[in-house]
């Protein structure tokens, strides 16, 4: 049958031909290069120029990395080792300085036997962030997030365990007062009670209570003054405190700026514009120099705390504007819908407006946080030894005088890790919260 068919319909191929190879120019690497690198004379020239630039950079840097020296006691010794191994004047990185000083770059002057404390604090912080970042975890875990700041404070600064506990009690008092008073006599009085009672407690009762308890049940870790904080740890403590504190403050400011209440509105606008209109370095100098003159003589208001306050205020002004952008992007119908449901102001904000506004503002907020985190290096100008300040201090030792790039590279890497993970998290959050139809 097959034969007959082949006779009658000779022009029909009854067998599948094997697939032919595409022409050499249209396949594999060559096609890819033709499409992407050499798709015209202009692109070809640009490609060649780019390749040359890359080659120039790499060929310059590669030997520097390849010859790097990791074990030496000083720059002089590094140079001796290099002269002995790869020859005089050859480029060679001296990463021995990192091996020698990495602990200082990370922890500053924190006592070495207590390094477990900042490390444990980091673990506490990361676990405390989990319930906030990933809503699938049980809500009870949020209690851990709320208490984490006190745990971290206790771990880092040490001292009596009763001090952070007594301070935390103030918040409990505030929460209880709000519950009881607002149930009994309305929301406004409840809010007032929740603000005033804890402040009275902190001013007059917290310190004696903590001292009394510390006297009778001395329990705690050895105290570490903030003067001994330094290096990357200082940046993280200032950065994270600023981030955690500035977000709620910034949201309140954004709401205040939209508020129809005259005083609140004008105060918010004034605060935002003044803080935002002056460079951060000026605020830091204010914190370190001017406050010294304003406060009564002999008062030693912790410099690091002053810096945290200034950084927080600065970041909150930016956050407020970012959040305002989010609020402005919401259609007016959302506000009206919230009103139509009979929700009061706080409920409508909490349940309807803010979740949507914040979602829109996430990239801006994270952007501000990353900027804030990197801005912490400005504290070098007021004499705090952050990683950049420490490079100067390290160079001032006779062993490492004259070393630059290795230290800066290490610091850049550490900052990159932090900022990059923040950026990635913001992307993840954006994808997860995407609700609109696109």
């Amino acid at each position: 049958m097959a034969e007959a068919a082949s006779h009658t319909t000779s022009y029909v191929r009854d067998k599948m031909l094997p697939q032919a190879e595409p022409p050499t120019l249209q396949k594999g690497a060559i096609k890819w290069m033709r499409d992407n690198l050499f798709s015209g004379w202009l692109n070809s020239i640009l490609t060649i120029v780019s390749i040359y630039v890359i080659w120039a950079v790499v060929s310059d840097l590669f030997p520097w990395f390849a010859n790097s020296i990791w074990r030496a006691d000083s720059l002089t010794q590094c140079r001796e080792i290099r002269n002995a191994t790869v020859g005089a004047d050859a480029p060679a990185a001296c990463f021995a300085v990192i091996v020698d000083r990495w602990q200082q770059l990370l922890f500053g002057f924190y006592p070495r036997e207590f390094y477990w404390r900042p490390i444990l604090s980091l673990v506490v912080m990361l676990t405390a962030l989990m319930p906030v970042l990933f809503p699938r975890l049980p809500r009870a875990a949020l209690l851990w997030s709320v208490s984490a700041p006190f745990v971290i404070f206790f771990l880092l600064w040490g001292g009596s365990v009763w001090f952070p506990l007594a301070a935390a009690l103030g918040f409990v008092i505030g929460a209880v007062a709000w519950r009881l008073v607002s149930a009994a006599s309305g929301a406004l009085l409840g809010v007032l009670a929740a603000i005033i009672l804890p402040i009275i407690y902190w001013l007059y009762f917290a310190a004696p209570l903590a001292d009394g308890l510390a006297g009778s049940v001395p329990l705690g870790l050895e105290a570490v003054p903030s003067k001994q904080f330094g290096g990357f740890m200082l940046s993280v403590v200032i950065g994270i405190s600023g981030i955690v504190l500035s977000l709620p403050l910034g949201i309140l400011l954004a709401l205040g700026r939209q508020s129809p209440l005259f005083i609140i509105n004008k105060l918010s606008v004034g605060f935002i514009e003044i803080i935002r209109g002056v460079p951060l370095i000026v605020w830091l100098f204010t914190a370190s120099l001017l406050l010294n003159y304003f406060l009564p003589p002999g008062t030693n208001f912790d410099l690091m705390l002053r810096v945290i306050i200034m950084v927080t205020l600065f970041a909150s002004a930016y956050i407020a504007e970012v959040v305002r952008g989010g609020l402005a992007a919401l259609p007016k119908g959302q506000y009206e819908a919230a009103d139509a449901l009979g929700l009061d102001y706080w409920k409508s904000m909490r349940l309807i407006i803010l979740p949507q506004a914040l979602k829109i503002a996430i990239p801006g907020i994270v952007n501000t946080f990353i900027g804030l985190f990197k801005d912490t290096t400005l504290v070098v100008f007021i004499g705090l030894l952050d990683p950049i300040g420490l490079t100067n201090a390290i160079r001032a030792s006779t062993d490492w005088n004259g070393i630059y790039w290795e230290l800066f590279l290490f610091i850049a890497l550490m900052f990159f890790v932090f900022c990059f993970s923040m950026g990635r998290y913001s992307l993840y959050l954006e994808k997860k919260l995407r609700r609109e139809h696109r």
Partner: protein
Amino acid sequence: MKKSLFFGALTVATLIGAAAHASTLDDVKARGKLNCGVTTGLVGFAAPDANGVWQGFDVAVCRAVAAAIFGDPMAVNFVPTTGATRFTALASGEVDLLSRVTTWTFTRDTDLKFDFAAVAYYDGQGFMVPKSLGVTSAKDLDGATICIQTGTTTELNLADYFRANNMSYEPVPIETNAEGQQQFLAGACDVYTTDASGLAATRAAFEHPGDYIILPEIISKEPLGPVVRHGDNDWGDLVRWTFYALVAAEEYGITSANVDEMAAAPTQNPEINRILGTEGDLGAMIGLDKDWAVKAIKAGGNYGEIFEKNIGENTPVGLARGLNAQWKQGGLQYAMPFR
């Protein structure tokens, strides 16, 4: 970190504020530590080592004062200060003593309300040139390009010097010492000028220090010393005489090695006996123990020992004693009589 930090520290601040403002010495004794302002890092003068322990010439002065008060040279909180924050830190009481290569000038002494306890190091502005330039004197520098830190007294000194000698120069402005090093090495300028001690330290860090020379001319006076607040003269006296005890110790041959031996029993020299407290009781007059000077000298040695250990000729900084030699060796270090 919530408000706990804020309110916590506020309470601490009020507590400290409430603890009144007694004399500086009483404050220091109550605290158990001396707060000493130093630089954020300057080769040979102040820098933390790998263990975070501060070392250097300025640091040694702080340690001697702490040792004189507490007998423990480690009882010091070092507060790194920048050029901009140093005077506020001292004026506001954040530090008790500023030992931070600070030049003694008229306005700082009078207008800023400080007292310079003594001159710990006589410095002056110098020039560094590459050997290949073939220059041996600053007088030959007519028409040179000079790397100079902007907005410093060195800039003004330089202009004065060149005008006085009827020479011209071309300035290459730089911001920091680190930038100056790089520019100078890259050949952006023929000459680098700053304080002579800084030049020596910079040169020591070069790959080939032998290729550069520091010219013999010193064109300005930079007397550097420990500074205290105006108004508490007892505290100023304590710092001044602790420093003089170190200088006198060198003059009379008291070292960290033999100080215990010499303090064990009165020696032939009544001045040594008075310093070491084996005769009379000078310590009580400045509110300290009889053997305050013994403790100060034991902390880091006498003036000469401190100099040699931190910036002397056997260190990478390699400074000669020069003006800082004892007056008997033709220098300016001259301790007032202990009597």
